[in-house]
């Protein structure tokens, strides 16, 4: 590992969200006026300390799975790596740009899939010519066929995420952050996206994968980070071991394990193509 090239260094990272409009007063004009007259700070601003001192290093060619329950700070961590959330304390260092794929992030809802592909490519810095060249392969990869003429808001969740993944994965990203973006895809798409992530790793990129589907993490990732309450519980290359401990801590029992090696004995998702 010493010779490997680091791609992402997270150094004692703290991230704090400021949330407006949290509960508190009754939210009427009168209470707002009283608050201003009384020179009180706005009662409805709350701070959420979502990441509390996280440190790790990810290397070129790593596929890092991030696991943990809802609200444990996985998405926030990915956003901080992408440079979208400024750190409160500590810092995130990256080699190159990061692209974040979230589950609910339609690019431009009221535009057709076709325009989304073109705009996405141009926004990533491709030239017009490159965009034209990539277009058929992106549409083909997404597998949405003739629906490409429809505005994206009429897509099903799965179709939307397929197209978004296809756009973001069309360029070899230095760092690809996948936040549950594959969860809504069907079996065929999972196989394809799995293969594409593998390819991106070969092209010397680093992939972060947030998924509640632990089988997917186990098959895709060579390292795993387990987060709880904004901190890292444990991390390492023993993917299966950490996942098993996570399952046990959540009150479940790992299944499909070989009693001797502790490895998964069979899988429903083909690992490589």
């Amino acid at each position, binding site marked *: 590992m010493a010779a490997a090239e680091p791609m992402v260094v997270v150094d004692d990272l703290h991230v704090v969200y400021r949330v407006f409009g949290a509960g508190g007063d009754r939210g009427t004009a009168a209470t707002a006026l009283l608050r201003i007259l009384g020179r009180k700070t706005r009662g409805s601003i709350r701070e*959420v300390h979502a990441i509390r001192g996280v440190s790790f290093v990810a290397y070129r060619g790593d596929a890092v799975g991030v696991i943990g329950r809802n609200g444990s700070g996985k998405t926030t961590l990915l956003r901080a790596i*992408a440079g979208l959330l400024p750190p409160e304390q500590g810092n995130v260092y990256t080699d190159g740009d*990061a692209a974040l794929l*979230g589950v609910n992030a339609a690019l431009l809802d009221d535009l057709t899939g076709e325009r989304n592909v073109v705009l996405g490519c141009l926004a990533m810095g491709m030239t017009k010519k490159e965009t034209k060249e990539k277009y058929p392969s992106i549409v083909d990869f997404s597998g949405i066929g003739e629906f490409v003429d429809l505005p994206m808001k009429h897509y099903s969740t799965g179709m939307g995420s397929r197209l978004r993944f296809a756009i973001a994965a069309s360029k070899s990203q230095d760092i690809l952050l996948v936040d549950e973006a594959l969860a809504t895809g069907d079996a065929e798409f999972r196989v394809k996206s799995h293969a594409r992530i593998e390819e991106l790793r070969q092209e010397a990129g680093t992939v972060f994968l947030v998924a509640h589907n632990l089988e997917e993490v186990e098959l895709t990732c060579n390292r795993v980070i387990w987060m709880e309450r904004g*901190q890292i519980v444990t991390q390492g290359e023993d993917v299966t071991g950490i996942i098993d401990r996570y399952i046990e801590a959540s009150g479940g029992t790992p299944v499909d394990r070989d009693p001797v090696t502790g490895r998964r004995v069979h899988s429903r998702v083909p690992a490589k193509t």
Partner: protein
Amino acid sequence: MSNDRRLSAPGQLAAGDDLPSAGTATAELPDEPLAEFAVQHGLRPSAERPPVGLYIRSLWQRRHFIMAFATARNIAMYTEARLGQLWQVLTPLLNAGVYFLIFGLLLHINRGIPNYLGFLVTGVFVFNFTQRAFISTSTVITESLPLIRALRFPRAALPLAYVMIELQQMLLSMVVLAVILLITGEPITWYWLLAIPVLLMQTVFNIGCGLATARLGSTVNDFSQLLPFLMRTWLYVSGVLFQISTLDIARKYVAILQINPAAIYITLMRESLLETQRESQPGAKPYNAQLCHVWATLGHRAGASQQLQMDSAYCHAVTNPAHYWYYGIAWAVLALVVGFYFFWRAEAQYGRG
């Protein structure tokens, strides 16, 4: 790090509240401090904004994105309507129609201005360009949050694209305006070509202001609520509906209102397109106290002849109309530099939402 206003991320371990010691969590870290380790390997902070030069270059590289984004948004704006793209032309036509109904047919207001309808519609269209640019850019960051969060590109591309949308609309409005002016009896002259540099200056001004409003609108939610009122006040003090020089206020205030950017671009556009404005502009002819007085009294009466209304040319100009072009350029450059710098300062913050 804990007080009652602060919440921690939820969730806890089933086995108890204790988190494993830092030892296990940092077992794989290099020995040296991480910040040094990162710098040694040429890594850069992810939330760092790029230097200005690099930023401008990457913005120039995204020019096709800006234009494609503007066109796509413009098309999407009317896709739900049955008449579709026709609305791009219908909107300015109906706008002009409303003013014609009220000021041309119902209210016989005479403000001592020859071809009042042409004067009014020119002012409304020019002001509308700036107004729409301000209002649309104030929400561009929140509207495009998914795009901002998914892909890395210079964020200034978004407000720029929104101003381009408004420019496309403005160009169509200009065609409608030309037809209206011809109907109201204005001749086509070489002066019409001056409309191009006026539009150019105004576009640069709008880009600068649009960048500033985009940043303000992205963080201060109260700003987009306040903006319509600010814009309406600006409309009334910029001489869209009347000649600023006829206001009954001290000359220095008249001067300030006359050189405000909206008034400058409106006046320049009027003087490019309306011959009646060029020739009736105060100061256009040598000062003549008697003729000026005639205009100030008789020229404002209902049913005053166009000849009488043109006599405003014999009055003193408060600010020198020859300087308006310099003001126009100065406002555009100032807005662009300040707006760009202001927007760029917060480049790393826009994904926050």
